[in-house]
């Protein structure tokens, strides 16, 4: 394929995706599953790409995503809930005086969510990133739980509204907001990954000792990756709050992190396009195709066993386990989507289906 054909293909693909998003936005009823999957999938795509930056590209296995999303979501919510609705939201505990008259523009709220997540990452990162990989995973998991518990605990009642959570959170100004915000963020992440710093991150993933011998300071680079990843995770949290309109501390359980992990493992650790693809696949499966697993089903008088609320999550965990055990590379491995790759795939499939009849292929 020549460069020109590839560019044309990419432009066409981009237009098709944009047209599809536009079609779902304008032509499909607002309660449609397709809409949910697209919007939620986009948010998951952003958090998955952020997680991949740290876990897949830098090789630091973090499980703190839910916590950083909670920070982003709560920051956005606390700062943007309209002043006149605050009395209603905080009816039980009242609101902290300093926050009573705060209402910042939505875009600023989103950025603030990312920034606070980044600041907290900077604070916990220094000690936590010194830990060896398993302990780092455990520590970030612990951090996530601590955030979740603190956010729902009584000392923060007048900020986070304790166990009641927050509602009346300003939603997306338009159906297109998540696509635009996530699109910009993912573009920035791609720019980071293809810069000299991104190469240094990959070097750390490949071999820490060799990276250090090349003059790359491990501590600062790991810290950078952790902060950047947390920043965009915080932003995705803000987007989630925007999408949901109401949040409590239970919106951000460990299970959320596992979902995102499932996405990046299925998509391929170290592949941005893989994460995006898997984000939509997993969201569609979870919110749509596998919904039936949560509903009791009767065939005549016979009740199909196992199908009840929560079974969907069991199936999900099993998928995660199977993927990790047998399909470590995921859809894309460490590669990115390319037209040549797609063409090769078509050729391979074609050879499988029709090529074998003409005797074995040359390349085996």
């Amino acid at each position, binding site marked *: 394929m020549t460069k020109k054909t590839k560019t044309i293909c990419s432009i066409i693909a981009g237009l098709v995706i944009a047209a599809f998003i536009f079609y779902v936005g304008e032509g499909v009823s607002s309660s449609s599953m397709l809409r949910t999957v697209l919007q939620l999938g986009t948010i998951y795509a952003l958090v998955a790409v952020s997680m991949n930056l740290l876990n897949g590209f830098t090789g630091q296995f973090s499980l703190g995503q839910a916590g950083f999303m909670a920070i982003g979501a709560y920051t956005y919510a606390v700062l943007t809930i309209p002043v006149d609705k605050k009395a209603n939201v905080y009816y039980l505990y009242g609101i902290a005086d300093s926050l009573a008259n705060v209402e910042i523009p939505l875009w600023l709220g989103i950025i603030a969510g990312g920034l606070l997540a980044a600041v907290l990452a900077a604070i916990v990162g220094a000690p936590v990133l010194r830990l060896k990989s398993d302990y780092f995973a455990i520590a970030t998991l612990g951090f996530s739980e601590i955030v979740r518990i603190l956010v729902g605990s009584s000392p923060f009642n007048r900020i986070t509204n304790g166990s009641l959570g927050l509602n009346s959170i300003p939603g997306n100004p338009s159906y297109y907001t998540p696509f635009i915000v996530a699109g910009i963020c993912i573009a920035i992440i791609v*720019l980071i990954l293809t810069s*000299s*710093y991104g*190469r240094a991150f990959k*070097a750390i993933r*490949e071999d820490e*000792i*060799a990276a250090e*011998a090349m*003059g790359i300071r491990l501590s600062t680079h790991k810290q950078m990756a952790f902060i950047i990843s947390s920043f965009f995770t915080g932003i995705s949290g803000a987007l989630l709050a925007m999408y949901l309109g109401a949040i409590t501390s239970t919106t951000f359980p460990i299970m959320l992190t596992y979902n995102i992990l499932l996405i990046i493992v299925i998509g391929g650790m170290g592949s941005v396009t893989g994460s995006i693809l898997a984000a939509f696949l997993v969201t569609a499966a979870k919110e749509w195709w596998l919904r039936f697993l949560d509903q009791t089903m009767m065939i005549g008088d016979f009740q199909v066993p196992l199908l009840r609320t929560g079974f969907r999550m069991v199936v999900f965990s099993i998928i995660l386990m199977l993927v990790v055990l047998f399909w470590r590379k995921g859809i894309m491995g460490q590669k990115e989507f390319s037209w040549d790759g797609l063409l090769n795939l078509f050729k391979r499939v074609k050879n499988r289906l029709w090529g074998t009849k003409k005797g074995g292929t040359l390349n085996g």
Partner: protein
Amino acid sequence: MDNVKPSVLRLEDITMQFGGVVAVNNLCLEVRKGEIIGLIGPNGAGKTTAFNVVTGVYAPTNGALYLNDNLIIANYPRGKMKEFYQGENKGKYTKSMILSPDRITKMGVARTFQNIRLFKDLTVFENVLIAKHMNIKANIFSATFRLNRKEEQWMREDAMSLLQILGLDKNKDDIASSLPYGKQRRLEIARALATKPSLLLLDEPAAGMNPQESDELMHFIGRIRDDFDLSILMIEHHMQLVMGVCERIYVLDYGIKIAEGNPAEIQNNPRVIEAYLGVDE
């Protein structure tokens, strides 16, 4: 003493102990500007460990290390530190000094590894480009938004010219682990040179090569010393290989330096012959 070349690397009483194993025992060693020095000895003699101390991977359990006559690593526990303080540099150092490997690389020491440590899943070009990262001026914001185009271009040109010198330019976009063994070794040298070292440490660069390849490599090492204005410290397990290219040779056995001198002296040294006797040669 005017005609003596300046010292690039000096080890004083370096000892590295792992539990009960004394891998390097009171090693004194010096590399002067422009020299190619051999560090030889049977397997397990402590050669790689000595490299790991020089590059900051391990902090020595005892001893001091100077780069260009500046003390950069020092550790004199068990009362020896006091002794250290009495010298002419009295009051100049704290108790123990250690530096992380990246700092030592920035001071101009580059190395290769005995069991090749390339960035396996990255391309040949990326491998070399990564070594140019340490001197980057742009911060992460300007690098992200491509405000450092000139710098990036300069890094790429530099990396590319190194690949050409090492004869790897045709393999530029290959994945590092897909290269044949000899080329992987050369790529490791290219990557080390990309950090612009003044001292290059080569850990068994000819391992796994056939006699002709290793002969070529030894010539090549002499050439890069001249072209890149380097001093080189080279580990080699096989004695004969280094004889032609090294000016001086240190011999380690069980962590202890048993001989030093020019190739002719080493070749005829009874202790060296004894150490190598019965070793698979």
